[in-house]
């Protein structure tokens, strides 16, 4: 675990302790379970966003993609009466395909990630609204999918399956990012794309892959959100969710310049955001201040982190210099 993650973990614990102290309902099983559910829902795509950010890119299209894939998913199950397994696979595949197109435009066509995904944000939202005639998509009365519902909204011993799935995805993605060849290449490309290229790394492919991974995770999230809300009004479903993902990643130590970040950090960032939301509700803060609280905490968190990093890197530089001087001395003796 990185020192950065440890700091964030301590912050999460302190904030939670304060909220629990001020309002003991925070640690009631039902509240914890609900918070865990939200952490799971928002965490799955945040990890994908983190990968994209580590390459130095950004994806703004997540919220719109959730709306578009969500209405299509519901339509497949209701209008087309498709088998739910097939529908799930199709939606994840569609997310992957959208991610691949964005990745292609960003790497092969050399367009800026901000622009490509901003257009994605507009396009997907518009298509979703047109597809449903701006109406709300929902399941037909009496329609039920017991296995799908259990897998998406079910609970085991009070633990929501969304959270379980999120933890599993985090473990897999953590291994991919921190221990695999792909992860090493990803950090190399994020830190110095040119040096990565000169070392024979196919940096274009690495970058495109992160958008594809995010697309697949967004597809999966679209299904979870659709089953969670059970009806989707395409004009508002998922709006700003990409910002939650960016906020979680940045809180979790990802640098928008690329090359920095950890999966555990993103998980903690997601948890902190949901705890803050919960705090607003439990402490009787007007819910209109919701975003303001989030903004203030992110600002202070990143500011404090920056100062800490500066301090640490100065100390580390001093240490390396001393160590090198010692080697010099040893060499001259």
């Amino acid at each position: 675990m990185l020192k950065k993650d440890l700091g964030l973990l301590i912050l999460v614990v302190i904030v939670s302790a304060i909220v629990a102290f001020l309002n003991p309902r925070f640690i009631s099983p039902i509240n914890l379970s609900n918070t865990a559910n939200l952490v799971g829902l928002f965490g799955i795509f945040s990890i994908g966003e983190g990968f994209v950010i580590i390459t130095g890119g950004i994806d703004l299209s997540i919220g719109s993609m959730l709306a578009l894939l969500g209405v299509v998913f519901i339509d497949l199950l209701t209008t087309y009466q498709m088998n739910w397994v097939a529908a799930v696979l199709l939606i994840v595949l569609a997310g992957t395909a959208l991610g691949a197109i964005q990745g292609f435009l960003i790497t092969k066509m050399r367009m800026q990630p901000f622009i490509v995904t901003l257009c994605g944000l507009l396009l997907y939202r518009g298509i979703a609204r047109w597809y449903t005639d701006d109406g709300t998509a929902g399941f037909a009365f009496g329609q039920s999918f017991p296995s799908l519902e259990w897998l998406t909204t079910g609970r085991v011993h009070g633990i929501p399956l969304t959270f379980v799935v999120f933890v599993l995805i985090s473990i897999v993605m953590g291994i991919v990012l921190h221990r695999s060849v792909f992860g090493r290449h990803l950090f190399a490309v994020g830190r110095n794309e040119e040096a990565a290229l000169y070392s024979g790394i196919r940096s274009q492919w690495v970058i495109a892959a992160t958008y594809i991974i995010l697309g697949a995770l967004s597809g999966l999230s679209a299904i979870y959100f659709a089953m969670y809300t059970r009806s989707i009004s395409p004009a508002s479903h998922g709006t700003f969710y990409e910002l939650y993902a960016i906020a979680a990643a940045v809180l979790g130590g990802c640098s928008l310049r690329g090359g920095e970040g950890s999966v555990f950090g993103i998980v903690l960032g997601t948890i902190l955001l949901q705890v803050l939301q919960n705090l607003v509700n439990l402490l009787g803060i007007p819910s209109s201040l919701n975003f303001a609280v989030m903004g203030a905490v992110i600002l202070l968190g990143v500011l404090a982190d920056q100062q800490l990093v500066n301090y640490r890197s100065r100390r580390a530089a001093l240490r390396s210099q001393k160590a090198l001087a010692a080697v010099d001395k040893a060499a001259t003796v």
Partner: protein
Amino acid sequence: MEPFLELKAISKTFPGVQALADVGLSVSPGEVIGLIGENGAGKSTLMKILGGVIAPTSGSIRIDGVDRPALTVEAAIGAGIAFVHQELNLFDNLDAAANVFIGREPRKGWPLPLIDRKRLHDTVRPLLKRLDVDFEPQTLVADLSLAQRQLLEITKALSLDARVVIMDEPTSSLTISETRRLLAVIADLKRNGVAIIFISHRLHEVTECADRVVALRDGRIAGRLARHEITHDAMIRLMIGRDLKSLYTPPAAPPADAVLELKGFRTPAFPDSSIDLTLRRGEILGLAGLIGAGRTELARAVFGIDRPLAGEIRVNGEAAEVYSPSDAIARGIYLIPEDRKQSALILEDSIAQNISLANIRAFVRSGLVSSALEEQNAERQIRALRIKAPNASIIAGSLSGGNQQKVVLAKWLSMEPKILIFDEPTRGIDVGSKSEIYALMRGLADSGVGVLMISSDMEEVVGVSDRMVVMHEGAIAGELSRDRFSEEAVMQLAVGHRRSEPIGERAC
């Protein structure tokens, strides 16, 4: 004439380095001073002190009889000290006139002052005329050639009423006719009482235009030459402190068959020049030429960074298709690029991670990267190459230039190179590490690797290569065998003419 500018006993120390020691220099109106010295001799530090960018540790600067401990940038400009930089500082997206008056634009109108374009152009036009240039004040800088940009920089200096213009390698990217014109401009400035400090490695040009020469070596004044003493040999002796001594170690065995052949190879940078080149197993082939002769571009294309327009690469006699660096690496062609920090290293990563980067799959055990294996390999390389570092987990950015270069080398050495291309292998590296790197190159060649060394350092390319190919404007100007090596011969080929003739008439 009386000097208006005097540097007295200037010293400058950076942590661990004495960049300048007790340097004195005086400048009188209308004289051309040739400032020479090897890379790292202290020329740029001295010029930065003159420009007010850095302050000397001790010594003083006397301008018009007033002594000061240091200059600021404003004070330097106010005293009439102007620079024409090696890397030009112009805005591509603005026109010539706007560049000349950037930050000092004439305004008109009230309450919102706008730029007075007419007055701007009218002020710049006579300045351009004075230099006899062939572009208008309205011409976009993006449309100007390198030589024209250089002249524009000089115009900028003139507009500041410069009394001394410092030119840092002004001719390094100019063609011969452009160089001739620049020398004529210098003569004209001189007639008008403007002093010039002319920093150049091109000793012919220094011979032609300098009234006197000041040579720096290891941060000290190595010597001064008056007009009649300025000769090529005298300058070289002052710069390197000795006659060119040979660094050469002969190969253990005569070079074997060709390991790399280029046939009809054309790079995007010089589409009209077709290159044929053979590199043999066990030799160090020097690739000499002036900066901008297309050597780096050739290396980039062979390594798969840029797609060649035409031609064939053969490795060990077999045609090799190289479309990307990973293709090149798969064939055993490795490149140690010119810009270490930008292209070769990830400075925030550890030595171990940098060494294993290109070959990370060799360190995978059951699907995961084993950092223990990486560290072991790195420790081995640290010992073998004598990299000065306490351990392999120290970050690459904290190492000195020489040790960083060894890390880059270590990256490729653990992957059994067939062909190793070094682009400026010892740029910015101290003398001690230099000879270690030369020894490593020789060791590699003796173990059967073909070494291609691109170098602009004359001492290096003459001293280390077994054979030499000289490039000029994207084409191979000629080949020299070891017995025909001389700085003169290399220079003749590098500037694109074979007979011994002076570059231009004596212009000043």
